């Protein structure tokens, strides 16, 4: 069926099967491969996107359901080519990533979290990250990155 989905403010029209996951629509249909896919059952958080501004798993929704909603992905964060937003910059400065697999999901989760709570403490940050797994960093550097943004 033919659908139009708005991603980072741009409308994309494609002909898809209802069983196409939103994560696969983003990656395979419109080439936005910044959204990563790890477990495809809601546990790892790599596929986290914003759905009308709220963090959600793109592997647990069908693309057809996203019509009429605003989807935001990691590609929409940077203010311009070659530039990073403050959260992305803090990840780089604090070594908040190693392989980077979890990073898009971390950034999207944290974007929504910081919009709601711009000055969280460490415990709140750890709680906000409970739904995002990272096998590299041990989380400490990610927490440090968020603390930098929170202090700014």
């Amino acid at each position, binding site marked *: 069926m033919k659908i139009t989905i708005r991603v980072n403010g741009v409308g994309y029209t494609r002909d898809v*099967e*209802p*069983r*196409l*996951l939103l994560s*696969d629509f983003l990656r395979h249909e419109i080439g936005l491969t910044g959204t990563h896919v790890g477990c*495809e*059952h*809601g546990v790892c*958080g790599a596929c*986290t996107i914003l*759905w009308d501004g*709220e*963090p*959600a*798993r793109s*592997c*647990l*929704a*069908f693309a*057809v*359901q996203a019509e009429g909603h605003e989807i935001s992905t990691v590609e929409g964060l940077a203010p311009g080519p070659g530039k990073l937003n403050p959260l992305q910059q803090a990840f780089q400065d604090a070594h908040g990533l190693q392989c980077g697999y979890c990073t898009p999901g971390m950034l999207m*989760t944290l974007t*929504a*979290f910081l919009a709601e709570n711009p000055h969280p403490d460490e415990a709140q940050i750890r*709680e*906000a990250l*409970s*739904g995002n797994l990272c096998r590299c960093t041990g989380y400490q550097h990610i927490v440090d990155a968020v603390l930098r943004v929170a202090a700014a």
Partner: protein
Amino acid sequence: MKPGPFEWQAPDSLEAALALKARHGEAARFLAGGQSLVPAMNFRVAQPAVLVDLNRVAALDFCQFDADGTLRIGAMARYRRIERDAAVAARVPILVEALAEVAHPQIRTRGTLGGNLSHADPASEMPAVMLALDARFRLRRAGGERVVAAADFFLGPLATVLAEDEMLAEVIIPPLPSGSGTAFLEVARRRGDYAMMGVAAVLRRGPDGRCAEARIALCSAGPTPMAAPRASEALIGRGLNAESFAEAAALAVTEIAPMGSVQASPTYQRHLAGVLVGRALSLAAERAA
């Protein structure tokens, strides 16, 4: 593609959704938040031929108090909406307290109360909270409805009294009388994980300072959410103090049937239940104005 093929129906009225379910019966599943059903479809554990998507049925998305204080929540009210509702936080605080333990923020954006209860996971927090609040559920089918008590709704792991053509449409929570206090406590490996043990406690301090009403229910404590009626009854007429709480906790441990998991043996789960019932009761008593 991960899920098997299906026919997707996204009606915008409740009547149309019920008619679709009546027509397709067992071959069709309702799709609510999708936070349990879509993982099952991605594993192909579930392969429904028809999905009746309820996300466009606005008539199922509400959360409001009647004049008498009864709280009515539509099946498609999302966790996020309920946990941010200031009136719910003020009047039925145990709902908000327990929702903070349900999965992660990303899951709560889409997950719904109706989907959670219909899914009937015995490890889930909400079914136990519904028992403690003495909630009732309105079940609808094309051309009919019935109201069942939460205590009669859950039959076993992932099993409820819902018939093939029925939908859980509305959750009805009676008002908490003045003097009531509530608490929800759980132990999980990480925030957002399913509980190894969870306890919902609702009690009421009578005019004489003694316990006038008590309901205790536990999650991850058996094949369904488990009420602890003997522990609850033992509190009635007693002082709200460490001694009566310890007795209730000891009784509650005998009323559950924890099944164990990779994280916790049944023995450990029973230990947790004893500790958590005592703590939840004293917290609820502290909060009982």
